[in-house]
Structure formats: structure tokens, C-alpha cells
């Protein structure tokens, strides 16, 4: 545990080196020739992801690097692969999207790989200092990416809103970390998990620790867009470029959940283990947040005429379902969260891939402009429909099993709080059916408007076609062949609980 063992962090090294090479190439090449930068970034992400997969096969329990500041277990590997795939899909979308932009190609790719590097580090975080730096690397990259369309008022507005609220959330997070350190005297997560928290609860330090955890949850709640820290989501989702929105809705949210799971496991785990009364009140708090998040997201989405805003509200709703898994706080709950995120990866990125392509033609994100898509672009319509139905949780698609596992884990708790949360959650599912199906109805039942913008979209690039196919297949595979993915999620959840 006290070894440096820096070879363990090879995926991060690969990403860092390729990011620096890309930075160098970007400085050297003129505006219109950024293929070199793109290639460096692509190679970096692909090799880092493959290396993580390889590490996953040879992994024995949990290994540490950097004197115990960096850990690698099944949980980290699973998330690194998820982040790697997300980054690749987003890069394929950005290549398509960047063709419509005349400058800043190099910077866009650089920011993408910086954010990806932050996500890889997040998956291996073992102490609060690394946690904060890794999270800021992601968030600061996203501030710039959000405001990337610098001639677009909406994009600038989104960037300003994101940076102001994001900086506030970071301040809360940092203050929370300071309190946790003050209460326990250690920044290492496993110190909290092993002894710190349980020892301290009985003493006066317990109040400080709980206050610190509360502030930390505020900071992380912002990243995952949970009520009451969700106000930025629809505006930022609408204003940012579609590939960035896709990256935010999958990468940033998953990174927030990795940290939430690690912190909750380390700080609240010992309380739950020793059966303290505090544990049940934390459970009730998380249940309350989850319930409100589900209601806010799903009710807000009902009135949206803009597909990206709708997806923004729906992403708040999904954060609520994932929080239900956190509330369950056991192996079943964590497994459900991991399965849900795997399903969400293919689902939400497939939807955004279609959004990027359609936006290239219509220059709008209005739901009305998707009318007649089923006739003009049957394949895109199929991917979008399957994605939306999977988000809604229609069996037998991927999203259904995610929701099923989450509800099963919560109901198995058998408490009044758990039952009421499950009731609120199912209400949310019913409401979400309505607005997802409204979009599907537009796609298939409505005629494309006369002289409307919708034509057949041609010239879809090969990587983009691959993204669409993989997402479509992924949505079905995670719905029909649950077992292999389920066992991956179970292994990762066990690794998380083992600490």
C-alpha cells in the first residue's frame, strides 16, 4: 500500500501524454489542419480504454499506487471502460459537429481529452485531495466546452450559469472536505471507512463529520443534477453544443456518481454497519432528495418543446432513480446503479447521436422539427425511438432492467420510507412515458411539414454510423442478455463495498 507502483496508473499516463502531444501539435498546426490533434486524442483514448480492460482481466482484489492515493479494483476498471467508451462516442459526434464550426477544432478535442483524463482519475480516487483535483479537471474543461459556441448567446449564457453555480458547488465541496478532515484527521477514504467515522460518531467530532458529509453531498449533488441543485441543467443542456450535452449527461453524471458512491460508502458505511440511528436519518434524507429529483425532472420535462431541454429534465429524473439506488445502500442497490449507468450509456448517447445529425439539417432542436423523421430517415428514427423507449424503461430494452433492479433493491429494504420512495418513483416512470411517447408520436404519426426542414440525411461518417449501430445493439443486448453485464456490475459493487 505504501509503494509508488506508478505503472498501475498507465491509462492515465497514456491519456496525459497523448493530451500533451495533442497540445503540442495544436500549437504547431494552422487553423484548418487539426487532423493530427484529432488522431493523437483518438489514439490516446482508445489505448487507455484497452489498457483498462486489460488491467481488469489481470486484477486481483484491490491494488494501490502513489502510496495509497490511487486505487484500482473492479469498480474503477468498470467505470474507466464506461468513461472511455463515452469519450469515444462523444468524439465521433464532435467530429461530425465540428464540420459545421470554422474554428477551435484543436481546443475542442483538447478539452475533451482533459475531461476524459479527469474522469479516469475520478474512478481511482482514494483521498479527498485527489478527488477535488480530478473533479475540477472535469468541471473546468466542461465550463469551456459549454461556452464553446462563442457567437451564440445561449451557449455563453449556459457557460456563465454553469461556471457561477459550479464554482459555488466546488466551494461547498471543499468546505465539506475541510470539515471531514477536521473531524477525522485524515483525507484518505479508507481511513474514514475503517475506523474514523464509527469512532467519531459517539463523540463531538461526529457532528462535524456529518456536517462535512452534508456539504460534500451538496457539491456532488450539483454534479449529478439532483434537486435542489439542479436549476442549471436544462439551460446548460440547451445552450451547449450537442456533443458536449451528450458528454455532460453521461460522463459528468457518471463521474459525480462514482464519487458519491465512494464518499457515501466511506463516510456513511461505518454508521450503517454499526446500526446507528444517524444512518437511518441519512437514508431518509437521500430518499427525500431522490423523490424530489424524480418528481422535478419528470414533471418539468412534460412541457418542453425543445428536445435538448426535455433531455435535460429527463436527465434530472434519471439522477433521481440512481439516487434511489444510493438510498438502498447495499450490494443490490449499488449493482443496480452500475447496471443502470451501463444501460444509460448506450441509451442516452444513441439519442444524442441522432440529435447531432438532425440538428445539422434543421438547425433547431424543437420537438416539432422531428415530425416525419420516421419516413425521411427510418434508421435514425429507429435509434431515437429505441433510445427514448429505453429511457422510459419499456421492457425489454436496456433501461427497463436498470429501473427494475433499482426498484427491486429499494422495495427489498421493506421500510416505510423505501415503499413511499418506490411509489414516487413509479409515478415518475408513468409520467415519463407520456413525454417520451409524445416525441415518438411526432416521429412516426405526424407528417413532415410542407417544405419542412426534414430531408434524408446523407453523408453520415463511418464513426458516427458505428456509434448509432453500437448504441442500438447495446440497448437490445443489455435488455436481452442481462446476466454477463449483471455479473460485471455485481463484481464492481462487491469491490466498492470491500473498500
Amino acid at each position, binding site marked *: 500500500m505504501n509503494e509508488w507502483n506508478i505503472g498501475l496508473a498507465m491509462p492515465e499516463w497514456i491519456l496525459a501524454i497523448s493530451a*500533451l502531444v495533442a*497540445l*503540442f501539435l*495544436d*500549437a*504547431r498546426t494552422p487553423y484548418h489542419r487539426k487532423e493530427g490533434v484529432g488522431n493523437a486524442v483518438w489514439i490516446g483514448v482508445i489505448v487507455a480504454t484497452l489498457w483498462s480492460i486489460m488491467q481488469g482481466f489481470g486484477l486481483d482484489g484491490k491494488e494501490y499506487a502513489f*502510496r495509497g492515493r490511487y486505487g484500482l479494483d473492479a469498480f474503477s476498471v468498470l467505470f474507466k471502460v464506461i468513461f472511455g467508451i463515452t469519450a469515444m462516442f462523444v468524439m465521433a459526434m464532435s467530429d461530425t459537429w465540428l464540420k459545421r464550426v470554422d474554428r477551435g477544432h484543436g481546443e475542442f478535442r483538447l478539452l475533451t481529452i482533459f475531461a476524459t483524463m479527469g474522469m479516469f482519475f475520478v474512478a481511482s480516487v482514494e483521498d479527498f485531495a485527489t478527488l477535488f483535483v480530478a473533479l475540477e479537471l472535469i468541471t473546468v474543461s466542461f465550463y469551456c466546452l459549454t461556452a464553446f459556441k462563442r457567437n451564440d448567446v445561449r451557449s455563453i449564457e449556459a457557460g456563465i450559469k454553469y461556471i457561477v453555480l459550479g464554482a459555488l458547488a466546488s466551494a461547498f465541496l471543499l468546505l465539506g472536505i475541510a470539515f471531514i*478532515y*477536521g*473531524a*477525522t*484527521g*485524515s*483525507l484518505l477514504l479508507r481511513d474514514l471507512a475503517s475506523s474514523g467515522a464509527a469512532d467519531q460518531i459517539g463523540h*463531538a*467530532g461526529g457532528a*462535524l463529520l456529518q456536517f462535512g458529509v452534508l456539504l460534500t453531498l451538496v457539491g456532488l449533488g450539483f454534479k449529478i443534477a439532483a434537486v435542489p441543485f439542479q436549476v442549471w441543467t436544462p439551460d446548460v443542456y440547451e445552450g451547449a453544443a450537442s456533443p458536449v450535452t451528450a458528454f455532460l449527461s453521461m460522463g459528468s453524471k457518471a463521474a459525480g456518481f462514482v464519487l458519491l458512491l465512494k464518499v457515501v460508502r466511506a463516510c456513511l458505511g461505518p454508521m450503517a454497519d454499526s446500526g446507528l440511528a444517524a444512518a437511518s436519518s441519512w437514508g431518509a434524507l437521500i430518499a427525500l432528495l431522490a423523490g424530489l429529483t424524480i418528481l422535478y425532472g419528470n414533471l418539468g420535462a412534460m412541457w418542453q418543446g425543445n428536445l435538448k431541454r426535455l433531455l435535460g429534465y429527463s436527465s434530472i429524473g434519471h439522477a433521481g432513480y440512481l439516487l434511489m439506488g444510493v438510498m438502498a445502500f447495499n450490494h443490490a442497490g449499488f449493482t443496480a446503479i452500475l447496471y443502470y449507468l451501463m444501460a444509460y450509456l448506450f441509451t442516452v448517447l444513441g439519442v444524442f447521436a441522432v440529435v447531432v445529425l438532425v440538428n445539422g439539417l434543421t438547425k433547431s432542436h424543437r420537438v416539432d422539427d422531428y415530425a416525419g423523421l420516421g419516413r425521411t430517415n427510418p434508421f435514425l428514427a429507429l435509434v431515437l425511438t429505441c433510445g427514448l423507449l429505453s429511457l422510459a424503461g419499456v421492457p425489454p430494452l436496456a433501461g427497463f432492467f436498470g429501473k427494475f433492479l433499482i426498484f427491486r433493491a429499494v422495495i427489498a429494504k421493506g421500510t416505510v420510507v423505501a415503499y413511499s420512495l418506490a411509489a414516487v418513483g413509479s409515478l415518475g416512470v408513468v409520467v415519463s412515458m407520456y413525454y417520451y411517447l409524445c416525441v415518438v408520436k411526432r416521429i412516426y404519426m405526424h407528417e413532415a411539414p410542407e417544405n419542412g426542414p426534414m430531408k434524408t440525411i446523407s453523408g453520415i461518417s463511418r464513426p458516427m454510423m458505428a456509434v448509432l449501430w453500437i448504441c442500438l445493439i447495446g440497448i437490445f443486448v443489455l435488455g436481452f442478455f442481462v446476466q454477463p453485464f449483471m455479473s460485471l456490475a455485481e463484481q464492481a459493487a462487491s469491490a466498492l463495498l470491500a473498500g
Partner: protein
Amino acid sequence: MDHLLIVAARDNAPVDYLPVFILLLLAVVLSVSQLAISWLLGKRVETNEAKDEPYECGIEADGHAHTRFSVKFYLVAVLFILFDIEVVFLYPWAVHFGGGVPDGVVFETRGELLGFLFAEMAVFLTILFLGWYWVVKKKALDWEEA
């Protein structure tokens, strides 16, 4: 290094946070008392046009504060902060290079410790200078062209 800190902070009691609360109390007392004193002792005058003017060294204000500045100023300010932080980081590192950490606490030998400190800073500076190279090549420091 952090081993020492852990020992220091492990046995804490609420009384250890007394200075924090005194500071908090002082901050509240100071800000409230200043407002209260000026409210109690100050003469209450109706506002008028001269009173509402922003005060700028006794000179009459010229123009509006909400004008647009060229983005170049912000660019230089951001780059300044970046390299300023670098110096803030570099200076204490140079002053305390290798000092203050007893042998055998984190590293076995003194050579290992110094090697580690040097390597850490070398990595940091390499990244920073690559960024600086990028900034120069992007002509961000070129006042005329930027």
C-alpha cells in the same frame, strides 16, 4: 509528511475549534457594529443627486462603469493568474527543498526524497511550459494580433 498531521489532528475536541468560533463571532460583531454605529450616530439626510453619484477620489465620474472592454485584457489577466500561481507554488518549494521532512518518515533515504521533490516539480514545469509554448504559438500574448 501527512503522517505527522494525522497524529496532530486525531485527538480533537470541540474546544479545539474555539478560535474558529471566536473569529466567527468577531466577524459578525464587527460588521454588525459598524452598521449599527453609523445608523445610530449618523445624521439622516434625504438622498439627493450628488449623494447618489459614485465617489471616485472627489473627481466627477466620467461615463458609465458598464462599458465593454476588449477581451485581450481578460486574456492577459487569466494568463497572469496562471503564471502567478506557478511562482506561488515554486517559491516555497525552492525555499524548503528537502527541509522539514525527517529521514525515514516518507522516504528511506535523503536522496530518494530529493529525487522525488525534483521529479515532481520537473513534471509540473514541463506541463506548464508546454502550455506556455501553446499560449505563445496561439499569439495570445501578441497585443496587436490577439
